[in-house]
């Protein structure tokens, strides 16, 4: 027999039976959710890469301590890349009798290849985007240099032997990046004036950069052709290192979205499994008769396999189409974030969408349908011969494997996925067990109840197994919905609160110890706010546990760089609010006989530092030794001043230090800064408003995106509700007919149903509230690392919302039941 043809006609016939439709719709929603998320993250990822190129001011950068060799430039020319050369070096800049060490950068007219320079005509005033570089004979300086030299625009300054007119205040250069506090103030000049400075001498420390721009294929080609000699000391920078704050924000966004998609798939899977089970039960007779008529087991398997594949394929395609349009909507939202449209979507999400659709339907529906092959043909004589029910473990294991298989794309983070999947199953099991217990307990109450309530309870408890399934299905749906609402409100709010409207937008650095008190006093008067100043001591890590630290020990380029340079240490006896201990313990003030260090977990991992290790630092020529007492997680995106390594106060207090602080100054109070600089000319002010705005914009977009994806998750939750109702539909129809025959009015039947749904709703609501709270706490603690407080309203809202959803969906799902004629009792046995 042509099983494919039979499968196809059977599919058309069964489409109207409801279960297939629900399976189809579940696939559709899951795939739509997944593909819109992956279409979207795919585009965002590429947009991020674009942004990253801006942070390099180019697509690729060659950095060398010697003049860039001509062959590098020639081969770039051959490939047709845009080329820009610049030199940077430290030099003293002179204005009258004022001297200041500045970081000078001499650029050509192609600079920057990616991104823009921004300047302003006044200190802390409105900035403009510039398409040009300083003209020959002029220089642009940043506000620090301007303040330090006490120069005004239009006056001239000396860089080496060259005299340059200060033309503009440089507020932003795309590739400045790096460690804001380690570089001297900036002077940007034209390369044409370089010779005039007479500073380019043999032996002077100059960094030569070759900036390259072009299509990604050309860049890749160039990179491949690049033959670097090991001792040549040329460093190549690609587009991998984006600015850390923005990278974290985007990674979080992808995690949120991935989780939502994964949960959507799990819920869709549940709806599919429930529908498939009912579909199978309804096909028992069919299969028994076909087996009687001589169909082989293999053919039965084939028929249902084909049916699922056809259904999965068609619905996945439609799902992808919906996903595509949905992410176009997301893109519109994103335009606000990147100030430009995202790159065009790629085709990859279509394949992953279809793959996901097929895997989901096969994993969740096939095990149910494969039972049909085991139907005994004897069933035509003996109705009670049903195939053995599926071993539950088989169902769970297949489902878990499917979800784990599908997950890497979603959250991009295996551990997060495993937690989510395990969490879901644990929740399911806990929900089921507690539901069963509660129903058993309630059953004792039945004789004491009034008619409708009793009828409702009787239904819930008699269909105990289905009720448990319903509570579990709906419970997971609602738990996730609650969780997403909580995640949205609590977690996201927690996250956004880190960047409240008064997040720091200025940094003060170079504060001398004897200025601390004065600055604190004057700021607390003018800003009405107490400002914390943090000590900062420069030191270089020399030893970890008696073994010398040398950059060559590390393969990882980041570790290599970190090992090579000095970085900022601080001391404190209490931990900053935006830090959190991940290993070990903080010290108490009294026990400071030894020196202790607290190390940021990221850097500890990169450099291989563990709690209990002894570190040696070289500070101002002296060696200081101490023990690592703890590792800290640092919330870098809070934009507060933070330090990789902090010691106890006694350890470092005697070493030479400067102080830094971050503070919020509203636009209306910018004059405070000018006064401060007049009073303390040696301190330096950094404006980080621009970074701040970008990080905040991304966060807002993420919140909106998550809300958007959240709609899909709710839809799959409702599909689960319908699947659960559908599984008891025939029974309900029959009972309603019988009740009607016995003289129940429509109203009585409806109130019976409402009583049942309300009871289910309350049980589900309470259980979901418990589950959601536990999961939220766990997520907050282990994944997002923030403090949340469970909202007490949850306990009121959850049962209420569950009741509403279940009663409304229940009544919609059973409206056909109410229309059933009492004549049914004379027809059906």
């Amino acid at each position, binding site marked *: 027999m042509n099983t494919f043809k039979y499968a196809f006609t059977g599919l058309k016939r069964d489409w109207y039976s409801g279960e297939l439709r629900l399976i189809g719709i579940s696939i559709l929603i899951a795939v739509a959710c997944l593909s819109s998320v992956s279409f979207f993250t795919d585009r965002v990822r590429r947009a991020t890469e674009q942004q990253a190129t801006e942070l390099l001011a180019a697509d690729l950068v060659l950095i060398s301590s010697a003049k860039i060799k001509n062959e590098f430039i020639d081969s770039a020319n051959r490939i047709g890349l845009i080329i820009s050369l610049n030199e940077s070096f430290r030099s003293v800049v002179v204005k009258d009798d004022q001297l200041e060490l500045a970081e000078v950068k001499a650029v050509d007219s192609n600079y920057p290849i990616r991104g823009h320079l921004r300047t302003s005509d006044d200190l802390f005033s409105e900035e403009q985007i510039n398409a040009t570089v300083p003209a020959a004979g002029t220089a642009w300086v940043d506000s620090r240099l301007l303040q330090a030299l006490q120069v005004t625009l239009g006056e001239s300054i000396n860089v080496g032997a060259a005299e340059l007119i200060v033309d503009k205040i440089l507020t932003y250069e795309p590739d400045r990046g790096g460690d804001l506090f380690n570089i001297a103030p900036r002077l940007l000049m034209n390369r044409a004036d370089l010779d005039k400075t007479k500073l380019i001498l043999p032996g002077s420390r100059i960094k030569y950069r070759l900036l390259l721009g072009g299509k990604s294929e050309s860049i890749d080609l160039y990179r491949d052709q690049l033959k670097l000699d090991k001792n040549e000391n040329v460093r190549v920078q690609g587009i991998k290192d984006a600015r850390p704050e923005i990278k974290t924000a985007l990674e979080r966004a992808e995690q949120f979205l991935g989780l939502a998609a994964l949960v959507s798939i799990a819920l869709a899977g549940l709806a599919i499994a429930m529908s498939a089970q009912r579909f199978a039960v309804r096909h028992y007779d069919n299969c028994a008769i076909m087996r009687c008529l001589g169909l082989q087991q293999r053919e039965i398997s084939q028929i249902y396999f084909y049916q699922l594949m056809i259904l999965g394929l068609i619905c996945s395609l439609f799902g992808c189409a919906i996903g595509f349009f949905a992410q176009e909507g997301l893109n519109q939202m994103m335009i606000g974030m990147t100030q430009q449209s995202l790159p065009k979507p790629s085709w990859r999400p279509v394949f992953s969408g279809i793959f996901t659709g097929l895997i989901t339907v096969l994993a969740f529906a096939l095990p149910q349908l494969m039972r049909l092959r085991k139907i005994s043909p004897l069933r035509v004589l003996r109705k009670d011969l049903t195939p053995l029910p599926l071993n539950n473990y088989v169902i769970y294991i297949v489902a878990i494997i499917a979800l784990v298989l599908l997950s890497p794309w979603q959250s991009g983070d295996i551990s997060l996925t495993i937690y989510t999947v395990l969490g879901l199953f644990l929740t399911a099991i806990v929900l089921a067990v507690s539901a069963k217990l509660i129903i058993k307990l309630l059953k004792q109450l039945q004789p004491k109840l009034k008619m409708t309530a009793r*009828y409702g309870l009787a239904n819930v408890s*008699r269909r105990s197994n289905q009720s448990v399934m319903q509570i579990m299905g709906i419970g997971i749906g609602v738990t996730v919905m609650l969780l997403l609402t909580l995640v949205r409100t609590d977690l996201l709010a927690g996250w956004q609160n880190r960047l409240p409207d008064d997040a720091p937008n200025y940094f003060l650095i170079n504060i001398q110890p004897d200025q601390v008190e004065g600055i604190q006093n004057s700021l607390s008067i003018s800003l009405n706010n107490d400002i914390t100043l943090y000590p900062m001591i420069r030191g270089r890590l020399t030893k970890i546990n008696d073994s010398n630290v040398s950059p060559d020990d590390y393969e990882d380029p980041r570790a290599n760089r970190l090992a090579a340079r000095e970085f900022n240490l601080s001391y404190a006896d209490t931990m900053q609010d935006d830090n959190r201990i991940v290993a070990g313990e903080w010290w108490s003030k009294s026990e400071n006989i030894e020196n202790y260090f607290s190390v940021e977990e990221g850097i500890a991992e990169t450099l291989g530092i563990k709690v209990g290790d002894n570190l040696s630092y070289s500070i101002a020529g002296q060696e200081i030794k101490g023990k690592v007492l703890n590792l800290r997680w640092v919330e870098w995106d809070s934009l507060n001043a933070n330090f990789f390594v902090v010691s106890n106060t006694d350890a470092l207090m005697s070493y030479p230090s400067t102080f830094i602080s971050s503070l919020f100054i509203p636009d209306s109070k910018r004059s405070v800064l000018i006064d401060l600089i007049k009073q303390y000319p040696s301190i330096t002010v950094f404006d980080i408003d621009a970074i701040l705005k970008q990080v905040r914009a991304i966060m807002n977009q993420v919140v909106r995106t998550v809300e958007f994806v959240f709609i899909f998750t709710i839809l799959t939750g409702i599909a689960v509700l319908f699947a659960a109702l559908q599984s008891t539909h025939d029974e309900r129809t029959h009972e309603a007919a019988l009740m009607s*025959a*016995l*003289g129940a*009015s*429509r109203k009585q039947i409806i109130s019976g149903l409402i009583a049942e749904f309300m009871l289910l709703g309350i049980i589900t609501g309470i259980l979901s509230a418990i589950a959601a709270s536990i999961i939220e706490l766990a997520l907050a603690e282990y994944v997002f690392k923030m403090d949340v407080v469970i909202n007490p309203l949850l306990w009121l809202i959850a049962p209420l919302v569950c009741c509403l959803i279940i009663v409304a969906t229940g009544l919609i799902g059973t409206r056909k039941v109410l229309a059933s004629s009492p004549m049914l*009792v004379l027809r059906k046995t």
Partner: protein
Amino acid sequence: MDSNSNNIVQAKALGKQVPSPEGTLTILDDINLSIKQGESLAVIGVSGSGKSTLLGLLAGLDIPTSGKVVLNGTILNDLDEDGRAQIRNQSVGFVFQSFHLLPGLTALENTALPLELAGSVQAEELAKQKLADVGLSERIHHYPNQLSGGEQQRVAIARAFASNPKILFADEPTGNLDQKTGQRIIDLLFNMNKDNGTTLVMVTHDDALASLCDRKIIMAGGRLTTD
């Protein structure tokens, strides 16, 4: 008029048609029938002749496409579904071939159900009484799946008589039972009928059973054929 007032059920020119792929299908055609208070009537006929359909129409479970049914003085055609439900609740009892007990309720709760639907305050006592009448005092807290077929049918009979109906409709009440149990059920049904002064309309395939009734009508092809 006088003879009419004696009739608990009357069917006048009753017809039922249903749409089918081949056009409208006539299941019942021009049925005229009067059933007196206290009478017992057997409806017999081959399978598919329309017996269940007629029973449904007489009991107000369904509405005819032509003609009318008068039950206990009320024209059923004029009532909506809820109105007919109320009539069924107050004046009609049912016993079905496949028992049709609600599986989630105990024997007692099943029996009390029609009384509770009517809002009776003594539902429980009355139901206990009826269950005692059918000999199931010991089993009142058992669920249907804990009872044998014969016991389930006895619960169904107790339920049918619980609200003291004027008329009892039974559709092949012994169809799912073995002969001996069936016989006991029939005895019980007739005794209860006599004790309560109820009218009995019973569909059956069993000629012996039919001959126990005061009167029998024979259906064929949706029409009445008086013998």
